[in-house]
């Protein structure tokens, strides 16, 4: 059963972090990421860690839940660690066969692994505390100044919304088609890669045909509901900045400004 999977890892809640304007949250995360790349030494990491822990505390998202977000990316973190550990030249610590680990390499490996971990947890805090729909709204609003230079802000946001809406439907459909073909003796589980890819045809063809049919019907239904693009469109929930948003962005600017400045001190 695919239908129970929650999309986008959103962890519902009503804390101050959840209630912050999505635009503000996106900007803060941008500042967070930028400052992360300005850091060249370990001490400022303490400030980054403090920020993450503070947000987790305020958002009441269980720490376990946040760390779960790291799981699928663990391989990348390990690979980053190993590459840095083995390929950085410097004072030799020890060697395994032809591979040598240097003191600088070890430092660099820990440093880069931490950077990745912070990067992932930071951004996942955004998706954990912001529902997909307000995230889309936030992106649309932030991009709207760029409409003049041809960025289709509204269309992008609409596409994201529709994609989110149809992911569960299509997953369910995938499950159904797979079963129907298995009932006719199809095999999706064995064989080599080439055979397996070939065996996917009976799944993918109907899936695409159905998706196009859905898209067609959806387009007509949207037209019947007077959809004509983003022009003159209003929203049920308009985004409005209030005091907490201003406060959050001001404090964050100072905080991350300070972190960036540590590099030049």
């Amino acid at each position, binding site marked *: 059963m695919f*239908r129970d999977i929650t999309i986008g890892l959103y962890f519902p809640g009503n804390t101050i972090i959840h209630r912050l304007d999505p635009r503000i949250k996106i900007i803060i995360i941008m500042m967070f990421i930028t400052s992360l790349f300005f850091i060249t030494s370990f001490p400022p990491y303490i400030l980054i860690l403090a920020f993450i822990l503070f947000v987790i505390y305020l958002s009441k998202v269980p720490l376990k839940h946040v760390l779960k977000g790291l799981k699928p990316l663990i391989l990348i973190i390990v690979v980053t660690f190993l590459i840095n550990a083995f390929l950085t030249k410097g004072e030799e610590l020890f060697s395994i066969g032809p591979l040598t680990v240097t003191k600088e390499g070890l430092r660099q490996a820990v440093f880069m692994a931490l950077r990745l971990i912070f990067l992932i947890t930071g951004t996942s805090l955004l998706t954990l505390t912001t*529902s*997909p*729909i307000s995230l889309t709204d936030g992106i649309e609003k932030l991009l709207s100044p760029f409409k003049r230079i041809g960025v289709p802000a509204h269309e992008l946001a609409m596409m994201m*919304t*529709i994609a*989110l*809406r149809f992911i*569960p*439907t299509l997953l*369910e459909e995938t499950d159904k088609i797979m079963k129907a073909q298995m009932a006719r003796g199809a095999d999706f589980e064995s064989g080599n890669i080439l055979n397996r890819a070939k065996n996917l045809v009976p799944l993918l063809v109907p899936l695409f045909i159905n998706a196009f*049919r*859905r898209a067609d*019907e*959806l387009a*007509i*239904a*949207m*037209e*019947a*509901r*007077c*959809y*004509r693009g983003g022009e*003159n*469109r*209003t*929203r*049920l*929930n*308009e985004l409005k900045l209030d005091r907490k948003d201003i406060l959050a962005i001001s404090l964050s600017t100072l905080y991350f400004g300070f972190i960036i400045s540590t590099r030049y001190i």
Partner: protein
Amino acid sequence: MADEIIRIENVTYQYGSGGEDNQLTAIKDISISVKRGEYLVILGHNGSGKSTLAKLMNGLLLPTKGDVYVNGMNTKDQDKIWDIRQTAGMVFQNPDNQIVATIVEEDVAFGPENQGIPPLEIRKRVDEALRIVEMYEYKKHAPHLLSGGQKQRVAIAGILAMKPDCIILDEPTAMLDPIGRIEIINTIKKLNREEKKTIVHITHYMDEAVEADRILVMEEGRIAMEGTPKEIFSQVDRIKELGLDVPQVTELAYELRKEGFDIPNDILTVEELVKVL
């Protein structure tokens, strides 16, 4: 006429373009007038042209010949198209493929948002529409976790929030289970009686037509029969010929009459038949 909401005048509609061979005439020289506040049911088997007719009624399709007027506005008039679609809202067969947003209330708001209604007014309309279809408690839910009947009611609310005078429903129950069907039929009746909406309900289920004010039966792009439910259902042979059903008791009454029993020819419900026997 003031009491007329939709007028179809000598409309022909052809699918496809180019050579004669490529064309499929789905609607053949039809004229219909839908009265304000009426509950009209259009019956017909698949391919009889009934869905095409529905799409002609709010400018989703434009007639090849003839004219369609909604509230006096010609659907060919490009400037009026959004007014027309707002006046004649449309609900489709597959509830999954007409819900746009990931939260029920956001979806209901989609129409008014497109119309550029101020946020506070949208909020009022969304809440009201969800109350009418009895889905208010679900306003924060994700649509994909609702039952078919519930999804279809959300779709109806999405149309209601646009404040249409007329609602066209194109086989709204075809994909639902019996409970979902009952939910939708009750909602449609409520819209007609309490909210005073004109209803054009397209279906191939005869039992859904029993309570209509008027029935049109389509066959091969033409109107084959027209009348009140009693007038239509009394012609059992003709209906079967057109590939449709009659309620079982209507058929039984008809069969008994053929055997020489004195039974009126307009039996539609179990109660009516029990009474006359």
